[in-house]
């Protein structure tokens, strides 16, 4: 119990609650099912991408190319299936884009492993590469032609509510994907040698190799999974917005990484959790929407979110500093 209360995730949860309550007091409209569902829907794609980012961060790496992989996989899948005259639903979209995502991740891992490069360096180029690939080979414009199966996907709800302002809204079906993915990633991280290998690599890469973890294989699997998750996020985003965009998520790479870091993942590796990642994404979404409810202008919103990020990144640093200081007080431990 004490461990739970001390956990970073609990702190994020608490702050999330406090912010929600404060916003709700200022504007009671915030406390409504439609707002809640709206926030959840807005969070789903970022959570899915965030879980891929989480694995990479835990392993002690940073990857910024996942946004471009999301764009490439979803846009290519869409254009491909459209060209083939596909008329079904999201199922085949997901399957095809996941295959693209896995391949893109594997190719990146191949480059990383072959030349023993930090993932971050490779991802700098890899991001531009895939956006460029989209624009040059696939198409330069957003595409609004949807197959029949995807028409109306954006309003397919599990639970429907009537809202006086927003009309009919509800809990979007894609939340099921997120749940499945979240449980899967949680299981991977906690119960597989792959998952523990990620933590081990992030803790001390040399030692992980000495302990017998197959670091290269872990890198392949990690980047392939991260690519697949980005692909899923890309397709869902396209279905939401009823259009497929060759430069989808461009410039949002750091926002996602920031949300994962707010959720307690260490940018230096070795730490992070699924629950924390989801809470981190939710916190940013609540802040963004809540500030609208408070009537804060868009310019200010950016600043507030930036400040929150800095505060959250400082928390572990302050904690570490305190621990570092504690080293000077070893007597305290003995007594």
């Amino acid at each position, binding site marked *: 119990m004490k461990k739970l209360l001390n956990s970073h995730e609990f702190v994020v949860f608490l702050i999330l609650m406090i912010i929600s309550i404060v916003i709700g007091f200022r504007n009671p409209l915030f406390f409504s099912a439609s707002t809640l569902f709206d926030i959840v829907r807005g969070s789903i794609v970022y959570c899915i991408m965030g879980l891929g980012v989480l694995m990479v961060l835990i392993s002690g790496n940073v990857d910024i190319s996942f946004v471009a992989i999301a764009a490439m996989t979803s846009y290519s899948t869409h254009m491909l299936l459209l060209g083939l005259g596909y008329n079904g639903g999201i199922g085949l979209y997901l399957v095809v884009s996941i295959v693209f995502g896995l391949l893109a991740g594997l190719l990146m891992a191949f480059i990383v492993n072959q030349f023993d490069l930090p993932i971050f360096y490779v991802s700098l180029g890899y991001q531009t590469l895939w956006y460029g690939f989209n624009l040059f080979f696939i198409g330069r414009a957003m595409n609004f032609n949807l197959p029949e199966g995807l028409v109306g996907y954006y309003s397919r709800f599990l639970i429907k509510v009537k809202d006086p302002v927003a009309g009919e809204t509800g809990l979007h079906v894609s939340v099921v994907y997120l749940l499945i993915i979240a449980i899967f990633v949680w299981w991977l991280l906690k119960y597989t040698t792959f998952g523990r290998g990620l933590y*081990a690599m992030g803790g001390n890469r040399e030692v992980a190799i000495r302990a017998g973890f197959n670091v290269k294989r872990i890198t392949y699997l990690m980047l392939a999974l991260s690519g697949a998750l980005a692909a899923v996020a890309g397709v869902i985003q396209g279905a939401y917005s009823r259009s497929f965009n060759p430069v989808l998520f461009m410039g949002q790479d750091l926002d996602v990484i920031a949300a994962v870091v707010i959720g307690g993942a260490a940018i230096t590796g070795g730490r992070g959790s699924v629950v924390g990642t989801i809470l981190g994404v939710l916190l940013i979404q609540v802040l963004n929407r809540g500030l609208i409810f408070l009537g804060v202008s868009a310019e200010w919103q950016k600043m507030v979110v930036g400040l929150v990020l800095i505060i959250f990144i400082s928390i572990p640093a302050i904690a570490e500093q305190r*621990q570092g200081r504690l080293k000077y007080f070893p007597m305290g431990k003995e007594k």
Partner: protein
Amino acid sequence: MNEELLRVEHISKYFAGVRALDDVSFNINRGEVRGLVGENGSGKSTMIKIIAGVYEPDKGDIYINGNHYKRLTPIISIREGIQVIYQDFSLFPNLTVAENIGINRVISKGGRVVNWKEVYESAKEGLSRVGADIPLDAITGELPTADRQIIAIARALLEDARLIIMDEPTTALTQLEIQHLFKTINDLKKRGISILFVSHKLNEVKEISDSILIFRDGKKVLDQEAEELDIKTMEYYMTGRQIDTSSIAYSEPEEAPPLLKVENLTLRPCFSNVSFELKSREVLGITGLLGSGRTELALSLFGELPAESGEIWLEGKKVFIKRVQDAMEQEIGYVPEDRIKEGLFLEQSISNNLVVTIIDWLASKMGIIRNQTKLKTAEEWVSKLEIKTPSVENPANSLSGGNQQRVVLAKWLAGNPKILILNGPTVGVDVGSKAAIHELIRNLAKQGMGIILISDDIPELMQTCNRILLMRDGRIVKEFRREETNEEELHRHLVAAKN
């Protein structure tokens, strides 16, 4: 008991034409504790790595449990029951104790799924084999060094280790923790597990080992029962020369007003009401167990952990030291423990290393550093400290261990402090370099500097200090004059300070 576990015969190893090991043979029996000593670069580490399967020998044969190998791989070595505990213990700081001990078993079985119950059970088993009790859910990085070492040993035992190689195992331990480690080693020995104990600390090697190997310049120069050896002989074989530690021409402190006077200095809970004086030309030792407040006191004097109350007087003038910059202004220098070990930019030139602390002074008003000035300053220090190098432009890693240590010291001396605080200046340093550093300390005192030497190495204190203060629970409990005490008395008081 005398069954042979490991035998190496005529092992030679070259690195880019440089000979690291030259025709080395020895054996280790079951349940035997073998000490291995040698200076830096004597081939100890190379030998460890060959036995661990990390390096291939160029010549020679290895026999483990009667199996003959021309070369080993890490996997074969582990399967034959050889476990190396490196200085960093090879642990994951971010993971729990249970996982650090238990995860290897999961990996070595090639499993894809982690059964946490099994991990916890094997961790418990591992710890019980060492006879230690450490909370399994603790985060490893937050534990004291001694506990982390226990974790590393527990993990080795779980791998059914028959030979545990310990590389400098006592470097980061206190006297008391060392005694615990020795007890653990003796327990392991009783169960037929062999230990190769690799260390710089000759008295410890002699205490724990059944027999001792000494390497010098890649050759085995001595292989003898520990009982038949004394420290002097070991030093002789290690360095190839007689080291004179008996005659200490230390300087008589001046009878002038003290250089430094500290009155009732307090920083709770680290230390309280600490008062002492330091004269010019004096070496004052401060000793005590880890956690006695000795390091914190030094950091207070250096402004890194400013004291809450109490007074500091410098040459009769009251001063306030609230920041590191204050201390530097008052010409107080501090050489922390890890600086000696890691304080060099090895790839950089000696001159660059030497001037790094005074780089501001060398720069012109425009912030440009004149190469000429830099070289001149560097050459000055090289000759002052007798650093043996053909040119100050050579990289620091071209120097021998002892000379590297001098560069580190010189770096701090270049600021020309009146008071120099040295924290564990010879931790992890081999005998030859150690003697050189001691001589340097005495020479600096002779030239008028006041030196505070923090150490729990009793021979070191006896060889360099005029007076020795003993700290316990943040207080100075006793003062010894060097000529009125001896090593046994000091050791007794130091260890007794625990209870």
